[in-house]
């Protein structure tokens, strides 16, 4: 084989190697992280901010957006709840088929009445959930939610998972929206869930 042929082969290989990239597969239709396959969302029985027992089954037929936090939270929780309120507002009539559930990670301070008052500042339809520390810990574990107390000069704060869980009408845990996403992302995904 002549040097010319070797060079030609090497050159063609280089070009083919460089051109090996092919068309990209389109990403998932959801803006949130999607579980595949979807499994039933873990059931729970907590105390609702409306005074009644709060279960996930109560909202079967609706899309549930579930967030974990505490009313003394200075930044993350208010932003998440404001975003969810904005998304609900943008959904118009479809918002009736969407339920936001805010589960406290701080039962020491977040009694049901306090949760109710706090959530009403964002959206009257939001429901809070509290319970015994054991019941809440078990619920968090079933969703893979992290929460731990962080001592502060004037008391304590809670370091916790900030993502929002998206449960479909059938009670399946479909997706997880990371903290910081915009209201329009929630609107987009909720519409997808409502359409199915």
């Amino acid at each position, binding site marked *: 084989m*002549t*040097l*010319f042929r*070797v*060079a*030609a082969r*090497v*050159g*063609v290989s*280089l*070009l083919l190697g*460089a*051109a090996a*990239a*092919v*068309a*990209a*597969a389109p*990403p*998932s239709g*959801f*803006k*949130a*992280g*999607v*579980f*595949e*396959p979807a*499994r039933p969302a873990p059931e729970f029985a907590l105390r609702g901010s409306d005074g009644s027992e709060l279960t996930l089954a109560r909202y079967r037929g609706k899309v549930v957006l579930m967030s974990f936090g505490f009313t003394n939270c200075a930044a993350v929780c208010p932003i998440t709840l404001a975003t969810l309120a904005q998304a609900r507002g943008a959904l118009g009539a479809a918002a009736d088929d969407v339920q936001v559930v805010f589960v406290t990670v701080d039962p020491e301070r977040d009694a049901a009445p306090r949760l109710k008052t706090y959530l009403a500042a964002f959206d009257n339809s939001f429901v809070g959930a509290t319970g015994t520390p054991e019941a809440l810990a078990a619920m968090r574990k*079933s*969703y*893979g939610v*992290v929460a731990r107390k962080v001592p502060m000069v004037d008391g304590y704060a809670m*370091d*916790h*998972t*900030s*993502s929002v869980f998206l449960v479909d009408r059938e009670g399946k845990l479909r997706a*997880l929206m*990371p903290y*910081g996403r915009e209201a329009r992302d929630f609107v987009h995904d909720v519409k997808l869930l409502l359409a199915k």
Partner: protein
Amino acid sequence: MRGGSVRTRWRAFARSSALLATFLLIAIAWASTAPIEAASRDELFEIPAGTWARRMAGEKIDILPDTIRLTLGINDVLLLRNLDDVPQVFGPALIMPGQSFRLPFEVASTYSFACTAHAKGAMNVIVDDTPARGWPTLRWRARHWLQRSS
């Protein structure tokens, strides 16, 4: 006679070198200007079967790095798959056996997730903008190639 043979070889060598250099230049020009496209935009991390049992036996197993680097438009979907037979906290989510979690990113930023699977209790995902044409694209391709080769 002998001088003619050397000259012929030298010419062949020069011609081959010129050809190779031309191909190289074309490849570099292509690599720095052509849009970067991948077969899949998924950046996949898997928990292999038996991981939990190995951890329970005291083995230290790190599957997800503390920091994951993604690039918009190229590999901007984090795909986590649990092939083990027990639920696993994997990055931002609790993933059931046989289940995957596919998280797309659309904004360049640094994302931090609480993750009990990490010693620091957190995992960062750094999402970079799509590299501009020219040197940034060439640099991205070189870095990517080196990462895949190592």
